[in-house]
C-alpha cells in the first residue's frame, strides 16, 4: 500500500498526465482546464452583454465533466490514498518558509497561514487568494491556455506560441516567488 499512499514518483505522474491528454485526444477532444472558467462565465448568461462569452459553451460540457471527475479524484486521493508521509519538501525550503512565517507541510498539501479556516479573519490573506485567482483567470485566457493547455498539450505538439506562454509562466512565477512573496509574508 505504501507505494500508493506515499508521494507518487514524478515519472509515474508525468506518464499518467500524458495518458490523460492522449485519452482526451482519442475521444476527439483537446486537453485544457482553463477553458472551463470561460464556460462557467457563459453559464451565467453574461454572453448577452459580453460577446466573448456568447459561444457554443454547451459543446464544452464534456470538459466540465472532466473537472467534476477531477474533483472526485481529489477527494478520493486525499481521503483514501494519503498518509502523513506526504509533501516531503527540501529541508532548505522548509527553513526558508518558516523564516517567512509559513507553517511546514507535515503531510498537508496547503499551508494553514494561507488556506486554513482562520483566514476568514484575515482580509490580507483573502485578498492574496482573490488577486492570485484574478491573475490566473485573466492571464490564462489572455495567453489562451494554462499549464495543461500550453505546458503539457501545446509543448507536446511542439507549438511555438505555447513555448512563449510557458517561458512567460516561469518569468512571472520567478518574480512572484523570489521578489513579491517575501514582501507579502
Amino acid at each position: 500500500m505504501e507505494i500508493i499512499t506515499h508521494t507518487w514518483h514524478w515519472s509515474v505522474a508525468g506518464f499518467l498526465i500524458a495518458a490523460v491528454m492522449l485519452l482526451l485526444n482519442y475521444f476527439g477532444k483537446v486537453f485544457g482546464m482553463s477553458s472551463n472558467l470561460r464556460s462557467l462565465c457563459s453559464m451565467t448568461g453574461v454572453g448577452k452583454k459580453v460577446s466573448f462569452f456568447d459561444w457554443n459553451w454547451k459543446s464544452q460540457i464534456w470538459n466540465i465533466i472532466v473537472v467534476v471527475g477531477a474533483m472526485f479524484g481529489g477527494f478520493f486521493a486525499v481521503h483514501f490514498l494519503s498518509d502523513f508521509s506526504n509533501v516531503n519538501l527540501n529541508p532548505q525550503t522548509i527553513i526558508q518558509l518558516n523564516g517567512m512565517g509559513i507553517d511546514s507541510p507535515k503531510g498537508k498539501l496547503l499551508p494553514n497561514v494561507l488556506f486554513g479556516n482562520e483566514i476568514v479573519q484575515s482580509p490580507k490573506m483573502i485578498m492574496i487568494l482573490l488577486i492570485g485567482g484574478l491573475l490566473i483567470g485573466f492571464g490564462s485566457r489572455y495567453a489562451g491556455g494554462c499549464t495543461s493547455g500550453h505546458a503539457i498539450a501545446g509543448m507536446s505538439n511542439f507549438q511555438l506560441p505555447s513555448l512563449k506562454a510557458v517561458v512567460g509562466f516561469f518569468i512571472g512565477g520567478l518574480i512572484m516567488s523570489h521578489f513579491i512573496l517575501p514582501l507579502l509574508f
Partner: protein
Amino acid sequence: MKFIKYLLVGFLFGVVLTKSEAVSWYRIYEMFQFQSFHMYGIIMTAILIGSLGIQIIKSKKIKDINGEEIIVPDKEKGNIRYWIGGVLFGLGWAMVGTCPGPIFILLGAGFLSIGVVLIGAVLGTFLYGVFKDKLPH
C-alpha cells in the same frame, strides 16, 4: 453514458495531481525556488510521453473513438498575448500555488478556501472577456 469516460479520465487526473502533490502550494514554491526536481520531472515526463504519443497519432493517422482521424490543432500565432498573458498567469500561479486544474481538484478534496481563488479566477476570466478587444494580442 457517453459522458462516463470523461468522468473517469477526470478522476484519474484528479488522483494523479493530488498524489504527485502537483496541487500543493508547497511544491510550486519549491519548484520556483529551484529546490527540487520533482515538479520539473513531472512536467518534462508528461511532455516527453505526450510528444511521443502525438507523433505516433500523426504519423500513423490514428482514428479517434468515432472513427475520425485525430486532429491535434495548432495554437494561433502571436506574441504579446503569450508573453504578457503568460507572465500574469505565472504571477498568480506562484502566488496561490494553483493553476486552473488544481483549483477544482482542491475544492473537490474539501479545501473550501480555494473557493476564493476560484471566484478570483472566474472574475479574471470575465474581465478578460470585457477588455479583450482593447488588449494587444
